[in-house]
């Protein structure tokens, strides 16, 4: 075990003594984050949010409570600094304003939206559910993505409530708590409705103003998306660099020297992997600390952040190790590492929010640590904690473990360490 740590810490030290590596690991993501911050106006002053009073059009064609609730959500004081909502009646006019780049997005609530979710008195089914349309401005992808997220969160909450209600009523019918007679059932339902209407606590669980979307929007800083996006993109370059060091050790003669020392091959490989991992953790940690101090970024729950960094670097290290098994020279590793960085950067949402990409790409993005990592960092920045990262952490750990497994199998077939 001691030799594994010796090799790992030696590689960490070497990485931080390589000026080129330092530029790519730390300076480049930092400068890109800085540049993108200026481009998006994140440093334009006014609070901690990079996006200010984004204009959004809301067309409420629904006559029911849910349509009104969504309108109220956009008009809530908690999002007043972030959003500047305007109400329109004509959906086509709203779309035209988006087309003319006059607004960030148009949220169009269709007629009968509430009725399509909540059955009218005397009805047991609502038919097909009407969809809320978010007509996004492609020229303002980040803002449009935030608005879409708010609407999705709203729709998700409504859906949960609808399904929960159906299940509850079905169980109550089954257990005999509700009468089977339709007239008696209607009367019981009316009574239950009155009870719920009079219960503040029940209302607050369904209430729109307290949904997480509102909280997220008020605290969201666009830099909290860009900084991890850039850090994760360049993390891929770091792990590729780390993978390359095994090949470099071979060409500089230190690998043969290690092999004739009383050290086992698995110890050498484990040490190299540890070196990649430690370098990645150090890189992300430095970027997090630096962006917190210099940009005033709030990364969120420290415990969740630490766990996420460890997990995301684990997933990325898997790719770095796998890369080592498919290349033959340090030059190939550098080229492939750069390609991997860019492809994963785009695919994983480091440049463009995944919300604005087709579903197929969103699905494909799950092979990248970037997508999982961004999801996790955004969750933390929006107020989530370690408990909210279960899926993200699991995804990254499974990714890392699977890639390590493939790499180990491939190492056995490779001539890199064969005698």
């Amino acid at each position, binding site marked *: 075990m001691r*030799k594994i740590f*010796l090799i790992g810490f*030696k590689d960490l030290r*070497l990485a931080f003594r390589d000026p080129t590596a330092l530029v790519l690991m730390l300076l480049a993501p930092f400068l890109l984050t800085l540049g993108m911050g200026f481009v998006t106006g994140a440093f334009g002053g006014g609070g901690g949010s990079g996006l200010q009073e984004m204009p959004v059009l809301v067309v409420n064609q629904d006559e029911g409570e849910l349509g009104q609730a969504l309108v109220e959500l956009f008009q809530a004081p908690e999002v007043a600094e972030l959003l500047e909502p305007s109400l329109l009646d004509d959906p086509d006019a709203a779309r035209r304003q988006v087309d003319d780049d006059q607004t960030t997005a148009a949220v169009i609530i269709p007629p009968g939206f509430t009725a399509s979710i909540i059955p009218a008195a005397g009805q047991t089914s609502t038919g097909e559910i009407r969809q809320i349309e978010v007509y996004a401005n492609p020229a303002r992808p980040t803002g449009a993505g935030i608005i879409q997220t708010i609407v999705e969160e709203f729709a998700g909450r409504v859906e949960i409530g609808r399904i929960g209600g159906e299940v509850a009523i079905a169980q109550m019918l089954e257990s005999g708590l509700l009468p089977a007679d339709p007239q008696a059932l209607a009367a019981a339902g009316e009574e239950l409705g009155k009870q719920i209407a009079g219960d503040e606590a029940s209302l607050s669980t369904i209430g729109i103003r307290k949904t997480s979307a509102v909280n997220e929007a008020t605290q969201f800083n666009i830099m909290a998306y860009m900084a991890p996006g850039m850090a994760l993109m360049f993390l891929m370059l770091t792990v590729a660099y780390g993978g390359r060091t095994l090949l470099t050790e071979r060409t*500089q*003669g230190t690998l043969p*020297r*290690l092999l004739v*020392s009383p050290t086992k091959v698995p110890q050498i490989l484990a040490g190299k992997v540890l070196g990649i991992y430690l370098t990645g953790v150090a890189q992300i940690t430095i970027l997090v600390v630096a962006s917190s101090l210099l940009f005033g970024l709030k990364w969120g729950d420290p415990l969740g952040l630490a766990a996420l960094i460890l997990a995301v670097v684990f997933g990325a290290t898997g790719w770095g190790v796998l890369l080592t098994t498919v290349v033959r020279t340090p030059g190939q590793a550098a080229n492939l590492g750069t390609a991997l960085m860019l492809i994963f950067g785009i695919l994983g949402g480091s440049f463009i929010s995944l919300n604005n990409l087709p579903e197929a790409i969103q699905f494909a993005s799950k092979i990248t640590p970037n997508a999982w990592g961004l999801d996790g960092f955004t969750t933390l920045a929006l107020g989530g904690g370690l408990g909210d990262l279960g899926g993200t952490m699991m995804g990254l750990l499974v990714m890392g473990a699977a890639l390590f497994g493939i790499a180990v199998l491939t190492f056995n077939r490779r001539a890199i360490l064969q*005698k």
Partner: protein
Amino acid sequence: MQALLEVDNLVKKFGDFAAVKGVSFFVAEGEIFSLLGPNGAGKTTTISMLSTLYESTSGDATVGGHSVTREPMAVRKLIGVVPQDLALYDDLTARENLNFWGQMYGLTSAILKTRIAEVLDLIGLSDRANQRVKTYSGGMKRRVNIGVGLLHRPRLLFMDEPTVGIDPQSRRAILDSVKELNRAGMTVLYTTHYMEEAQELSDRVGIIDHGELIAIGTQAELTQQIGQMDSLVLSFGEDQDAAGCIGPIQALPGVQCVDYTDHKLNILTPSAESILGEVVACANASGLKIRTLEIEEPNLEAVFLSLTGRALRD
């Protein structure tokens, strides 16, 4: 003396190419044994098998009674290796390199600190120990490369052409270090294609060519193999080609073999004086200007020439 290293019919093939063809020899505890041969003779491949880096195709060797094929880890604890190519971390200092490799050999911090100081003193780099290796000259890097190999005080030190490509001063320092280590009791297996180094350092020499050990013994034993032979060496300017003289000189009575390498004619003959006039005449007839002319006593170069028909530099 007891053999520390015993090599038994060691063979290494790379595909159809046999780099080492059944080499057998021994190295006694406390001696310096040199493998002398030209580039590509199989010296490095032999050392790579003995140091457990390569697996042999057939045959075996033991170090301190441990088989290199069956007990590689036990062998690695007894040996030190100074590879032909530098094997150092350029972005670490000499001290950091020594510290890392010392720990890889299991040296604990208290002993390691003392050993590093001793080695730095031996290789003459105490005053520059905290500078990164990449700032060193080629000779200084070579010395650190050697220092790493002997830090853990191995019983048997393999040194694979440690003086290739360095300045005369560093070369002198390395040769002196090897002798000092040997005086301290370290057994050394040294490979070189420099006859002078083998002559200066070695208790015994094995001459290797094309993967075969063609002669082995002390320097005196080897030179006796060719009898009372002289080496007549003529050197020419770099703009001149004396290859045309090989045939006529070879035809002279008593000439055993002639080699022309690096603008030097090397003639092995029982009596250099008896053919001197004819050799000079041949050179003059070819329009060549002789730069120097030497008659040398029998040496390892002559032995190699006698055995292979080629000079060591080939």
